[in-house]
């Protein structure tokens, strides 16, 4: 079980309090109707599946309830950093 630093609680908490939320920094377009089918398909389905440094979303679901972003190494599972949703990618 991992320990995850919640940037809202400023505390290291057990993984079981968190929910994984997929790849980070994929913003929903302001006006999806302007997207072509191909662009919309990319938004819906296409993900990086990186080996190594991966930006991903987590939610402290059984804690403060807030979403945040993390950089985690998908090979070692180690978290490099976490930061609040809305902050620039690290």
């Amino acid at each position: 079980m991992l320990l995850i630093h919640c940037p809202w609680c400023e505390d290291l908490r057990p993984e079981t309090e968190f929910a994984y939320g997929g790849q980070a920094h994929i913003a929903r377009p302001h006006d999806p109707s302007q997207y072509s089918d191909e662009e919309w398909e990319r938004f819906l389905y296409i993900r990086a599946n990186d080996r190594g440094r991966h930006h991903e979303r987590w939610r402290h679901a059984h804690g403060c309830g807030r979403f945040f972003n993390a950089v985690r190494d998908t090979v070692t599972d180690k978290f490099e950093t976490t930061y609040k949703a809305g902050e620039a990618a690290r």
Partner: protein
Amino acid sequence: MSGYRLATGGRIDRTRPLTFTFDGRLYRGLAGDSLASALVASGVTLFGRSFKYHRPRGLLATGVEEPNALVEIDRGPGRVTPNLKAPSLALYEGMVAQSQNRFPSLAFDLGAINNRLGVFFPAGFYNKTFMWPRSAWEKLYEPVIRRLAGLGHSPTTRDPDTYASTYAHCETLVIGGGPAGIESALAAAATGERVILIDEQEELGGGALGEPTRWAWLADATARLGAHPNVRVLPRTTAYGAYHQNFVAAAERLTDHLRPDRASGHREKLWRIRTRDLVLAQGAIERPLVFDGNDIPGVMLSSAARTLALHYGVAIGRAVAVMAVHDSGWHDALAIAAAGVRVRAIVDLRTAIDPALIEAARAAGIECLPGHAVTGVSGRSAVNAIRVAPGGTGPARHLPCDALLMAGGWTPTLHLWSHAKGAMRWDDASGTYLPIPGTDPVRCVGACAGEWDFGSGMSVAALPSLKPAHRQKAFVDFQNDVKASDIALAVQEGFRSIEHIKRYTTTGMATDQGKTSNMNGVRLAAQALGRPIADMGLTTFRPPYTPQTFGALVGVHKDALFQPLRKTAIDAWAEAEGAVFENVAQWRRARYFPHASEDMHAAVDRECRSVRQSVGLFDASTLGKIEVVGPDAAEFLDRMYTNPWKSLVPGRCRYGLLLREDGFILDDGVAARLAPDRFHVTTTTGGAARVLAMMEDYLQTEWSDLDCWLTSTTEQWAVIAVQGPRARDVIALLVEGIDLVPEAFPHMAVRDGRICGVPTRLFRVSFTGELGFEINVPADHGRAVWEAVHAAGQPHGIVPYGTEAMHVLRAEKGYIIVGQDTDGTVTPDDAGMAWAIGRKKPDFVGKRSLARPDLARDRRRQLVGLLTADPATVLEEGAQIVADPGQSIPMKMIGHVTSAYHSAALGRSIALALLEDGRARVGQSVHVPMPHGNVTALVSSPVFHDPSGARLDG
């Protein structure tokens, strides 16, 4: 081998004799014995049969690495545990042990014919042989192989034991209670921080238990540990897995060492430990040597003979020989000789041996044979002699003995180090892999780190011999019966990676995970491949370190506590009324309320008729509820749901349809606008958590500028649905402060008021097609209000109805149930609910996807009704639909049945289905091929009852 109890020595209590049975025969042992030491002391040599060849096998080791002496312990009904290791079991009075893997008895085993046919069972035998014909697998090969090959019996009765678990936190966790572990724990304890010391044996000490000169130190160190209030010592506890960031799982055995009639409380306790620093002091395991006949009972690890003699006061035999390639064999031989065991000879493949060792051995009357190797072993169920040859290839000499000890060197126990992703390097000097200290706060100490004080040795794969390898019964993996020749064969057949060789030969894949075999396997593979062993690498260790019981892993999560069973405030009333329940998500819901002799069909028919003709009462408390509050609440719901919400006036409700961003239906429910900035949103029972999480996601990460908040109120409200033409008459007696006349309180309206003196949010909604109300009251009052409504409805013949009647009633109206009539590939238009889409809204979740070519195309599967030609036939939910039943198999499937019931209102069966181009097929016949024949059905509208909706107003 003819073991016996030494006159003195050991940590056993000679004043406390114990009796026990092994394979039905009565034996005697002493308090402090292990099952293995007591059996050896009684002269037992044969402990089990091997897995594949059913060869007779004796004790190899005195720790958890033991591959052969597996037993089944019977502690009473439901308490039979297979595959336990005889040397790890503390003996207790009355212990009942059985050997395994033999039929009909240990001494005479029919399966041993495999041994004679061994030449026909090479590596990959099963893969190569039992492939064809396919049907023979089920009928012939598998049953026979299973009967012959089993390792013990799975318990078939319920486990009557209970199990506990806990989390624990400490600054230092030490795994292994030998001298290195104890010293580490004492050092950490001095800081005042929290320390946990785990050891798998009956008492602390590890290797020191076999060294009487250290017992005084051990007693003192143990006492000093006990004096630290910040130290927790867990004996009889196996740390079986190390996970991320120093999270360790360990199982503590609380009662298995006690007489069953004196044991009480939890059988085991699972410890889930988070530690800042992890110290691995798990010691090292001695390696067997690979030579012809190395599995004959009486051939065992040298360290095991030492433990038997010095820890348990048991001599392994009356004439013992040692085959060593490591100094530790000499030390062991000298130690057991000093304890009174007659050691005849020490054979050592090495020519250069510490002269002091040779001198000491000779002084003890032991013949020394440096530069020699054992080339064969005589005996079937016990060793009676060995053959010894200079260099293994010179002229052989016959040497009578009744036990042969192997000293092949040492392998640090790096299983948990490997779980924790620790790195390792090959070390030529010690002939094994050693841990490379890393940056993580995990470290190995003592023998676990390769630091031992019993000298050095040579690194050897198999002992030299003139006999061709394929004719030798030279075992690498004793439990899985893998021979040196099997590994050579795997290499010959093209396997290169040690991971592949492992899987092809199954070496290291038995219940002991290759604790004694892995290094020899790697060494032999490297030799066969002509590669340096450092290039081979090790196979991956995975938890558990030793097999654990399911009970320990399950903890309290069994029987009634398997998972939370959520009950509503009204559940106890339903139970008292004799309701039959079903589980929906984690909720228990009343399915129907049978009268005395009614079956489900009769009860549901009666419940449905009552709702249609008079009035029924339904517990809808499990519906998910979310209170959406804030100035932007309507804007938020507008973006989430397909429907428009800003136009909804306070006091009114609307059916809402929620899509995923991919355009498919996710959930639905009625939402009420209580105030301009306050909505009461309902979801499906199973979708409550999912919907709330999705809404939070959008609100927090996409539209964080909106001022609105979500609060789950699912459990705040008990919901009592009162449905039927008499519904208003019933509640009118109880409600205060709400005008119930249709003009003041129309369909799809909501009002705050009081009922039975408590506050209520009263909805006028219907999931039955009848006049209906849903009374929301704080859950505390749910039961009392329910009973009051039930009483008030008696003059109207009110009946409680369950989920089954609810399903029938809604299906008669063509109302979908998300997850039953939809499956994650259904769009609003497919479900016939294009009307629920707010056409003027610029955007909502899933809107863009509805324009994707596949979702907008013609001939998609659409929700329709089906009326079977025979009105008595109720279709199977999930059944496939075809246009032409005469076509050849496989048929082209054009849809499937999603819901099917007998309808009391229609006096016939009805069904809902998703059917390709379904709406265009209304009036046509389709076919549902079933095992007993074809069912023909007419495609209809999904609304079977009251299509105009006139009955909604009662």
